[in-house]
C-alpha cells in the first residue's frame, strides 16, 4: 500500500533557472499538498500535462527526492525515516530508464539482485521465471548496448521485478516506445495487479489509463485536482470522453485563476 499525506516539494532555483523561467522567485513549488492512497491489487494512475508534478511525485515515492514536507508510507514504512527499508519494497521503472550498455542482461540482473541482497539461488530461480515469461533466454549473454529497444525494455522489466517488490512505480513507462514494446509493459502492469501488488503509474496517454486503471488522480501545476475511483470518474464525466474530460478539468483551473 502507498499512503501519501500532504506531500509538498519545493526546489531552489538557480540564477540560470530563474532566467529561463522568467521569474524572480528563489524557489519553485513542484508538488503542493498532495494526498492519496494506493491499495494493493489495484492500479492507481496519476494523470497530468507536462510539468504537472507527476515525475517529481513518482521520484519522491521511489525515494530519489526527499519531500519538503508531508509523509509517504510504502507498505507501512515511512520513506523519509527509513528510505533504505522502503526501497526494498519498491520496483521503479520509467520510459527513460537507462541500462548499463557494457553489461549483459545476466550481469545486470545479478548486480541488482546483489544490491537487494537476494541470495544467489533465489535470484537464479526468479531470473529463470522472468526470462521464460519475457522470452529473454536468447539474448541473456549479449551486451545490452547491442540489444534492440524491445529487448532492452524486457531487461528493464526483469531488473524492476527481480526483488519481487510489493509496490511498483511506473513513471511514463511507455513513453517513446513502439507498440509491441509498450504492450510488454501493459502486460507487466496487469500481472502486477493480479499478483496483488500495489501499482502506481503516471501517464499522459489516456487510452492506457482507460484500459488499466482502478483509481485515478489528476495533478496540475503540483496540485491534486481529482482523486477517486475510475468508475466514479467515468460516471461523473461532463465531457464525452476521457481525454476531453481531462482537458476540461485542467482548463477549469486555468479559468478559475483568470
Amino acid at each position, binding site marked *: 500500500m502507498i499512503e501519501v499525506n500532504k506531500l509538498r516539494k519545493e526546489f531552489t532555483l538557480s540564477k540560470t533557472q530563474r532566467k529561463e523561467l522568467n521569474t524572480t522567485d528563489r524557489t519553485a513549488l513542484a508538488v503542493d499538498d498532495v494526498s492519496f492512497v494506493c491499495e494493493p491489487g489495484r492500479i492507481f494512475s496519476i494523470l497530468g500535462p507536462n510539468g504537472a508534478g507527476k515525475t517529481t511525485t513518482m521520484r519522491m515515492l521511489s525515494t*530519489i527526492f526527499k519531500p519538503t514536507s508531508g509523509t509517504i508510507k510504502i507498505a507501512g514504512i515511512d520513506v523519509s525515516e527509513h528510505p533504505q527499508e522502503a526501497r526494498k519494497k519498491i520496483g521503479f521503472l520509467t520510459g527513460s*530508464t537507462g541500462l548499463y550498455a557494457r553489461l549483459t542482461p545476466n550481469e545486470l540482473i545479478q*548486480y541488482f539482485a546483489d544490491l*537487494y541482497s537476494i541470495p544467489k539461488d533465489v535470484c537464479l530461480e526468479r531470473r529463470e521465471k522472468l526470462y521464460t515469461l519475457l522470452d529473454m533466454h536468447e539474448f541473456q549473454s549479449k551486451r545490452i548496448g547491442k540489444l534492440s529497444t524491445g529487448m532492452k525494455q524486457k531487461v528493464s522489466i526483469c531488473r524492476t521485478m527481480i526483488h519481487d517488490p510489493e509496490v511498483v512505480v511506473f513513471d511514463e513507462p511507455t513513453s517513446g516506445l513502439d507498440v509491441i514494446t509498450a504492450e510488454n509493459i501493459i502486460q507487466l502492469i496487469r500481472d502486477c495487479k493480479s499478483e496483488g501488488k500495489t501499482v502506481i503509474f503516471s501517464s499522459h496517454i489516456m487510452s492506457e489509463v482507460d484500459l488499466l486503471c482502478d483509481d485515478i488522480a489528476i495533478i496540475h501545476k503540483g496540485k491534486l485536482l481529482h482523486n477517486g475511483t475510475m468508475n466514479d470518474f467515468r460516471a461523473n464525466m461532463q465531457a464525452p470522453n476521457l481525454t476531453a474530460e481531462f482537458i476540461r478539468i485542467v482548463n477549469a483551473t486555468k479559468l478559475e485563476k483568470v
Partner: protein
Amino acid sequence: MIFTIFKKELKDTLRDRRTLIMMLVIPVAIFPIILSLFVTVSESFSKEAAEKTIQIGVVGSEDNYIIKQLRLLPQELGKKNITVYKDTVELKAAIKIDSAQIGIFPSADFAMSMEIKKPAAVTVFFNATDLGMKERAEAYLGTIESIAKQERYIDLKINAEEIKPLEISYSNVASSKEMIGKLAGGFLPYIFIAFGFIGCMYPAIDLFTGEKERGTIETLLTTPVARWQILFGKMGVVVLSGLLAATFALLGLFLSIEVLDLVQDPEILEVIHGILSPKFILMLFGLLFPLTVFFAGMMIPIAVYAKSFKEAQSIITPMNIIVVLPAMVGFFPGIELNVVTACIPIVNIVLATKELIAGTLDAGLLGLSFAVMVSLAVLAVFISYKRFDKETNVVI
C-alpha cells in the same frame, strides 16, 4: 555493498574503450614512442651535424695565419671548405644566405699583434639559428689558439708547466643516487601526477555524468544502498584507474629504458633498478594514494554537477594545467622539501619523491606532506559526498 558497486563499476570501466585507451594504452605506449623518437632523431641529427661539410668564410688574404692554420686542422674536428672574402659586409651577407656558415674576421692589426706577441683580435660571425655552428667555430679557433700558444712558449723559451701555479681537481661527494634524485628525480612524480590525473578523468566523468546522462542513476538510487556507499564504490574505481594509469606510465618508462638501452652508466642503472624495489614502490604509492584520492575528490563534484559528458570534460580538462604546473617544480634544482613546501599540495609530493629517490628524505617532512595530502583528500571526499547527496545534482 561498496564492494558490489566497485566490482560492477570496474567491470564496466574496463569494457569502455575510451577509458582503456586513456588508462592503459597511452600510458604504456607514450614513453617508448617518445623516447625512441627522441633517440632516433637526436642520433640522426648529431650524425648529420658531424658529417656536414661547412663553409668557412675568412676576411683577408691566403697567407693569413688563421687561414693557414685552418687548412692544417685535422678532419676529425669536422669537414670544412674555406672561402676568402674581401670585407665583413660580403662575409655577413654570405652567412645570411647560408653560402657560409661561419665567418672569421681577423682584425686589421692581427698580423702585427701576432708578431709582437700581443693578443690578436678575431671576430666570429655565425647564425644562431643554425645550431651547432658556434660550437664548431669554438673547436676550430680553440685548437688554433692552442697551437699559437705552444709556438709562443717555444719562442719565449717558457716551460708551460712553470706558468701554471695551481693544479685544481674537483671531486663530487654526492652519490649517483643523490645526483639523479635531486636533478632528475622530479620527472618520476611528474609522470605519476600527470597520468594519475588523466587516468581519473574519464572514469570520473563516465561513472557520474555518464550515468546521469544515460538515465541509469535513477535505478541505482532506488535500490536499498545508501548514497555514500554508491559514492565510495564509484570513487574506488576512479582512484584505482588513476593509480593504474600512473603505474602503466612508469612501466612504459622502465620498459623503454630497458628495451631501448638508453642508459649505459652502470651506477645510474643501479639507481633505476633500485627504484623498482618493493620498498620504494610501496613508499611511492603511500604518497601518491592520497594524491589520487584528492584528484578523484576534485573531479567528482564537477562530474556530479555537469549535465553532459561534454560539459564535464570542458571543465575538468583545463584543470590538468593547474595540476601539472606545480608538478613541474620538481624539474628545478635547488627547490627543496621544507616545512613550507611540504604544505603545498602536489609540490610536496613531487619534492618528497625526489628526496625519496635521492635517499635524503626527512621522516618529519614526509609525515607533514602525507598529512597535508590526506587532509585534502578527506576534504575532497566530503565535498564529493555533499554534492552527490544533493538530489537535483544527481538526477537530470
